[in-house]
């Protein structure tokens, strides 16, 4: 038996199409399942009936294999509900059901990793709960969750391989088709494996970049490049304000925290207690 490795190049177009299909399913499912996972995570942290429903979803679908999930959606929904999904849609729904559950667990632990004081600080500033969530808690939880979501995404791409059973033309289905005419299973499945490995490497790199960009200050050259415009803007504001003496500029004596603290019209307080402070203008040594 000779191994004809040239087949990989010969059928590159079909294999590449299969990969694109697989990635499309996985990316659409990723976006939806992260949102679903977020909602489930919040559900698990809320009041009892909601919490139970969310826990039920998580515990059921974490245990279902992708193969069973897609068969259930593709054939089951059709028979039971009359919903006829395409192989592509079935694949997306199957992944969302499973990975929504995983992302819920990832986000739940990520929210728990955000210190309680962060939420308290947001509330103490008078922010609404929704503002605290979207501007304080969620960004910090997402940074914690990103590496795990990346691992899940690699799993999602790999799980698309079982969607060949419903006829989705992804990498494995394409490989099966080529194999049935060329009779080179070792070569073709090795190529398929190599494609998954390369993609996993690429995705790992992409999620690492995302993580480094979410790190503050941004870590690494590429993420710094991405954050450069924002940083320049901040520097410009600080430079401009420093140039304008209206703001009191530097920290000189009598620099105007007073201007901030007491708006015009607030009554000036008269009290002898202040005299002692006034008579002693030099700051005391602190302890």
């Amino acid at each position, binding site marked *: 038996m000779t191994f004809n490795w040239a087949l990989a190049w010969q059928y590159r177009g079909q294999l590449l199409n299969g990969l694109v299909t697989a990635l499309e399913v996985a990316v659409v499912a990723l976006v939806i399942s992260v949102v679903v996972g977020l909602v489930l995570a919040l559900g698990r942290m809320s009041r009892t009936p909601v919490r139970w429903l969310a826990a039920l979803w998580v515990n059921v679908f974490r245990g279902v294999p992708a193969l069973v999930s897609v068969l259930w959606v593709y054939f089951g929904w059709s028979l039971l509900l009359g919903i006829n999904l395409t192989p592509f849609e079935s694949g997306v729904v199957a992944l969302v059901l499973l990975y929504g559950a995983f992302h819920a667990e990832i986000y739940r632990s990520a929210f728990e990793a955000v210190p309680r004081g962060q939420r308290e600080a947001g509330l103490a500033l008078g922010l609404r709960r929704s503002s605290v969530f979207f501007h304080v808690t969620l960004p910090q939880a997402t940074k914690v969750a990103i590496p795990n979501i990346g691992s899940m995404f690699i799993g999602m791409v790999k799980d698309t391989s079982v969607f060949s059973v419903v006829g989705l033309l992804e990498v494995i289905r394409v490989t099966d088709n080529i194999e049935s005419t060329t009779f080179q299973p070792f070569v073709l499945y090795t190529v398929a494996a190599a494609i998954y490995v390369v993609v996993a490497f690429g995705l790992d790199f992409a999620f690492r970049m995302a993580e480094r960009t979410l790190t503050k200050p941004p870590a690494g050259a590429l993420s710094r490049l991405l954050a450069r415009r924002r940083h320049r803007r901040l520097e410009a504001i*600080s430079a401009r304000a*420093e140039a304008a003496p209206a703001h009191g500029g530097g920290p000189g004596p009598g620099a105007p925290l007073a201007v901030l603290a007491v708006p015009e019209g607030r009554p000036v307080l008269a009290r002898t*207690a202040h005299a002692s*402070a006034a008579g002693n203008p030099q700051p005391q040594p602190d302890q």
Partner: protein
Amino acid sequence: MPAVRSLAGQPVGLGQEGAIAGGAVVELRGIRKRFGSLEVLRGVDLTVHAGEHVVIFGPSGSGKSTLLRTMNLLEPPDSGSLRVAGVEYGPERPPGAPSGTPLQLRRQIGMVFQHFNLFPHLSALENVALALRRVKHLDRAGAEERTAAALASVGLLRWAAHYPSQLSGGQQQRVAIARAVSLDPQVMLFDEPTSALDPELVGEVLAAMRKLASAGMTMVIVTHELNFAREVGDFNVFMEHGEIVGSGPRGFLDDCPNPRARQFIGSVL
């Protein structure tokens, strides 16, 4: 100790030496708070007047921080009530008084935490600007202008683009002070603002607070810095076991009538 509580309930702040122009900004009445089987606040009455600087001190676990946190309902009291800027909150409001919302209350009050609690994913400027935009509804330019002024007032304008992880503890706490003060609160609460700092960084934070105090800001300060308390405290409160055990005006720390408070002061200094 009802006698002490009624004393604290009257406008005694500086009653003898000089009248405070402002009325009561914060009034706590019979505040009780329980965590499980532990009663951390056992009926506390305290009045804070406009422009007054109230210092709360006492041993660990005496309920000082919890008391401070009930003032902006981060810890809702189990019983008792509070009145802030003329609005009633809490379970035991006077009959007929409608309750304000926690949001309404917190928008009157600024708070500085022991561990700063800056938002680590936002730069110093964004930390201050966030609430100016979301609470004061300033546009981006307006919020940034006010933020720049606030950071300048604590001497940190140069650090506007830096993230909390790039700032020292003292700088972080000054940003936290600027963040709270920029919202123009009626009262500022300080929860052991220097306890988490290296000793050499304490001074810069106290300097910012001193500046705020001399600008007439109403302040309630939980602290172990008794020298600072002596300097700015118009009214001093000693707490132990969830109660106000002793309290008094300026000079209370040097000439304390309460033996337990005197013992505590002696052990700290």
